[in-house]
């Protein structure tokens, strides 16, 4: 790297370190940085000056409930990860081509008189379930894509939230009445939202409620969405 190549990037290092370069500029600088020993040396020298910036803010103890909620989730996920792979909940009759499944599901809907049943399979490993909105969430819709013991809930048209509220997913296992707290999420503009769910291996139902910010350990409001998994 000669001085001529380096010069256009001379002033970019500090701005890049502070996250102040726009995306294309940042990418161009990173390509330069890869091959520029001078910038790499400067980066090593200046890095502690950026690293120390967070220490300048007023130190506030975090709310104690945050520790309980976060570590509760972490411990539950660690327990699940340490268990031998649970027998995957599978509905063998779903392993048929998509049009046949759709027809079958339509029959099931009519026969059972419920909306929000299994509507299809995305792949050999995935199953997709459609959630049914409650009266409070008319216009909302959601699909739960389950792969093994985890899944992603894609919701849209969710009712509005206050700033101090969140949506929270809940899981009920087969043969149980207790609801387990799951992901806490907020929608983007337009009401689109995504939640990640784990521990679905024995799940019978997934629900979504509106909760105070940070989530709850028990639902405090009526479900807005319900997806039946078995």
């Amino acid at each position: 790297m000669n001085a001529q190549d380096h010069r256009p990037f001379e002033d970019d290092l500090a701005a890049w370190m502070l996250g102040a370069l726009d995306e294309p500029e940042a990418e161009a600088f990173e390509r330069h940085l890869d091959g520029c020993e001078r910038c790499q040396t400067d980066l090593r020298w200046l890095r502690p000056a950026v690293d120390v910036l967070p220490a300048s803010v007023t130190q506030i103890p975090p709310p104690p409930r945050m520790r309980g909620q976060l570590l509760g989730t972490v411990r539950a996920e660690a327990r699940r990860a340490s268990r031998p792979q649970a027998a995957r909940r599978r509905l063998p009759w779903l392993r048929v081509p998509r049009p046949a499944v759709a027809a079958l599901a339509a029959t099931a809907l009519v026969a059972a008189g419920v909306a929000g049943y299994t509507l299809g399979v995305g792949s050999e490993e995935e199953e997709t379930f459609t959630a049914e909105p409650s009266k409070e969430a008319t216009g909302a819709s959601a699909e739960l894509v389950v792969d093994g013991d985890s899944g992603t809930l894609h919701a849209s048209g969710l009712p509005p939230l206050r700033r101090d509220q969140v949506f929270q997913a809940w899981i009920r296992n087969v043969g149980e009445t207790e609801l387990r707290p799951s992901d806490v999420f907020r929608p983007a503009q337009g009401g689109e939202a995504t939640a990640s769910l784990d521990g679905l291996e024995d799940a019978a139902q997934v629900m979504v409620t509106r909760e105070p910010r940070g989530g709850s350990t028990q639902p405090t409001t009526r479900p807005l969405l319900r997806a039946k998994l078995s």
Partner: protein
Amino acid sequence: MGSLAEHVAGVTMNTEALQRLADEDLMPLVARNDAAAFEVFYDRHAGAAYSLAHRIVGDPGAAEDVTQEAFLSIWRSKARYDAARGSVRAWTLGIVRNRAIDAIRRQGGRAPKLDLDDEAALERKPAPERTEAEALRRETARQVRGALGALPSDQSQVIELAYFGGFSHSEIAKMLGMPLGTVKGRMRLGLEKIRARFAEEVLE
């Protein structure tokens, strides 16, 4: 020679043993789904993380969301920490900072505070110094605030707007009515001064 954590891989360590590990030795355990190691990691950094998130988003509830999201992403991504890129603390706070900036961008409003010195706020709302580590953090905060406060305001201002406000250099140039090159130059000068004048005593 592997790290201490590698030597004890497969052995469940008690909390006391985990607390004696350096951050760099805790992270491989976190990557192996060790919830107790994550707990120790959380206790070491949650205060600084929450304080930074609070400083950026300016609201206790939103700061809590940002901090939780950041720690969960570290847990779930299996802690892709790379020691070559700096300390665990700096890496963690970098994640918190980026999430906090994303949060204020999502809200569509960014109103960074421009005063570097939060001493007055601290005095108005004295939080109990519950632990030695917290007391140390407060002392470091005082030192670093002093260091930043000693910078010429045109340098501290651009650093503040970029780091805590999430503004790009072009947005800052427009806001302050100055050429792009001047903004970048002031950022560089400011960081050089922090490094040269204060880094040794505060950081080493």
